[in-house]
């Protein structure tokens, strides 16, 4: 079993608990206007237009797991593990299942970072081998969700509720972009929705940053939403105040 991977980062501390290895699977069905990994969107291996950099390579599950296992001692000492992210890792569902199963069999904590946009059957299959879902909630209003990501959010919200009912551990992650999905109404709706979840352990705000912006030119992709400013301290303060006051 093999798949397309565009990066493997070790010693990451932001995508799940403890020290983690993040495996980035290539390909995403969404086209979020703020995406900071535009080179991850296409499922194909791509060549940068301004440098000789190549994004993506075919790797076997064994090759990926050899990398993942290198930091086993640090997963153990920190309560960390592996996080499969992307792109949208569920787009390579069979490969992801093979990887998650192998890690799970090794006793490595498995997190999947997902937009939630994949058939329920794929999620259901993952349940026994995934310890934590890092689940993006971008916008509760379906129409706006479509404008911002290219897809409606019915499937996203349904899958989330189903995962919750199935007892999966969930960390909700909200990528917030000033002026795009952070109105009082957006945040109120978000809070209202997550109140329904019984197995949500955490809700994280992921403030928009500009760090990926130069990659659009590098990979010859049009900037979908122009050159926006990163979220300010004031924005983050406001989001925190509204979202965390009684979640």
């Amino acid at each position: 079993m093999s798949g397309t991977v565009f990066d493997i980062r070790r010693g990451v501390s932001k995508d799940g608990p403890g020290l983690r290895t993040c495996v980035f699977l290539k390909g995403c069905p969404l086209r979020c206007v703020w995406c900071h990994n535009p080179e991850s969107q296409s499922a194909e291996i791509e060549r940068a237009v301004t440098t000789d950099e190549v994004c993506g390579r075919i790797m076997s599950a064994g090759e990926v797991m050899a990398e993942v296992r290198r930091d086993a001692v640090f997963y153990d000492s920190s309560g960390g593990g592996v996080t499969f992210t992307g792109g949208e890792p569920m787009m390579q569902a069979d490969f992801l299942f093979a990887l998650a199963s192998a890690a799970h069999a090794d006793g490595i904590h498995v997190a999947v970072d997902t937009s939630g946009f994949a058939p329920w059957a794929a999620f259901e299959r993952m349940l026994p081998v995934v310890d934590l879902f890092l689940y993006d909630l971008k916008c509760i209003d379906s129409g706006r969700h479509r404008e911002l990501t290219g897809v409606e959010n019915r499937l996203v919200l349904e899958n989330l509720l189903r995962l919750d009912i199935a007892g999966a551990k969930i960390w909700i992650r909200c990528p917030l972009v000033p002026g795009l999905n952070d109105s009082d109404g957006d945040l109120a709706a978000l809070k209202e929705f997550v109140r329904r979840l019984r197995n949500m352990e955490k809700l994280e705000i992921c403030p928009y940053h500009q760090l990926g912006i130069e990659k659009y030119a590098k990979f010859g992709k049009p900037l979908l939403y122009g050159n926006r400013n990163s979220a300010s301290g004031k924005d983050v303060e406001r989001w925190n105040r509204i979202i965390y006051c009684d979640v």
Partner: protein
Amino acid sequence: MNYAERMARLVARKIEQTKAKQERLGSRDEDDYGLVLPPENFKVDLPVRDAAGQWSGPRSWALNFRWLMENHPCYIDPDDAIAGRWMFMLSRMRLGYQLSRSNFAFDYSHLEPIQRKYDITTGIGKDAHFAPDYQIGLDLGWGGLLEKVRAAKRRFAEDAYAVELMESEEMAIVGIMAWIRRLAAAADDRAMTEDDPVRRANLLEMARVCNKIADARPDTFREVVQWIAIFNMASRTYNRDGAGGQLDEMLRPYYERDKAKGVLTDDDAEFLCFCLLLNDPHYYQIGGPTGDGTDQTSRMSYIILEAAAKLKSSCNLTIRVWDGMDRGLFRRGVEILLANRLGYPRFSGDKALVEGFMKNGYSAELARKRIAVGCNWMSLPGMEYTLNDVVKINIAKVFEVAFAESGSLAELEENYRRHFKAAVEITAKGIDFHLEHQYLNEPELLLNLVSHGPIEKGKDVSHGGAMYYNMAIDGAGLAVVADSFGALEQRISVEGALTFEEVKNAVLADFAGEEGERVRRLLDSSGRYGAGGTSADRWAMKLTEILNSEIANHVTPDGFKLIPGWFTWADTLRFGKVVGATPNGRKAGEPISHGANPLPGFRKDGALTAMAAAVASVQPGYGNTAPWQLEVDIGLADEPDAADKLMALIDGHFRLGGTLVNINVVDAEKIVEAHKDPSKYPDLIVRVTGFTAYFNSLSPAFRELVVKRLVKERI
């Protein structure tokens, strides 16, 4: 006036003193050492110097040392609990002294051609670099030590060398006693003119303490702290010795006794420890197991750690991390490291150190007592003579010699092995030469007094006086050589992208011209040591096997046991200057790699776990270290679990076999700014390697190296 105010004033004065040192002495890529400048009009007029500005032998050293002690300016600070600061380094006063090459009274030119061929740092004539057992001095006091050497002199009346040595020890002690008495008088004098009642009382107590410990053994906590400081300063003055000991256990009995009597509070004890650490950044260990394997963390350990936290100056405190430890001490140490960002404390890994040292045939009890008291090194206080951290083989130079003779990778490996073996042989001969002559060149007059054996046997510690001889040999340049082998294997053997001849031509021409640069880029971009699973990673482990195969469980021709390690100290620039271009894409004369660390840029993500695993994978594993030097840039921000993550990283490294971790938690932007204009940050302290130093006292070239080393990764 409270302790906090006194501490603040003492730290401010320390910064002024550092600035003055820099102005008068210039940049120095060394430890701060705690020394202060003598008054400008003070003239050193040593009684013994030959026409060439040299001296040797016990009596000459003793006469010169005694002169220094008897004339040493008496530094008194009314805010300080400790009298005295040290100002001179006798061992550097012989004409032509170089840090990289000690003056030596015996000709070893028969060894030098091969030593130079492999750029061996020979250790010949090097002093100190093993650890004292202060308890010997604390139990006897200077008066008791004087009696002890006088008795030994009578006992060895038939042995001319022993008599000279003991008479020299006497002179050294008498000089120290005179200095302590003068310190007492100076404190008394100062008290007369001091208006502030707290300072005045402090000065009078300082005088009383000095008057007592000039002869009698110390009894109270304050007397013990002053005694240790006096020994440290005297020993520094003699030959820069900076090894401390297990400070918490050394102080605990006196602390407990004074506490029980109601004459000492925890605040008093903390202030006294603060003054001791400020006086001199000696290397101390806290925590860790006793010889029988129980945890020796005590209230005293925490008091020392909190004193260090308040010090905010150069400090070399190590916490021993082990399975049975009080994790609270570990956590507090990490919290201080993260909050203060001054490069201390450091952490040593008990498991690998103990298991490793036992492989040399020693008991677990002894191995547990071998503690962190030097830059990269462990030592058995008072029992062992080691030449730690002063004997090094520049393996980049060994590689260069082998490469010039080779036409293929297989041939290169064979040649490297052969030349490395020859390099170890010449190094071992150098060690023997040192051990044969050093007692006549520069006897260890100060450390002999606090070692088990020299006085009892009438022999210098470097010449049969010590209980154990475990001679250290460190390899330097690991990543440069591993990456060079790795690049050759990847680009030539695996990919066929280059031929050996192409590489050789380019390397020998220092990658000149367009073609040279093309080859250099290909080599430079190959998989590095530290990335995980690369050819270079495998070569780094192979180089460790080669290191061990020639050093571990080997003895010198004269039968002295050798122990391997990986360490460059602060010598990456010097080692690099003598090595031409290397096949990792490094140009001629550029610095070599630091210790066991991968080269900067070893992975795109700079992953700390990858680095931790890599450095653990190259541990020689015989009780000496291959330290992990880690620079972490951590934003001021909001990392509530940073301590947990850093502890996990250190724990993981030690579980994999790591031995010692030196960490800088720094603000990268501040370091870059300070590099441009050092005067902007006079209080910025960085861990250079095993030691910490004020950033602005380092040379521009060395500051540049520290900047390059920064890993801009959040924990």
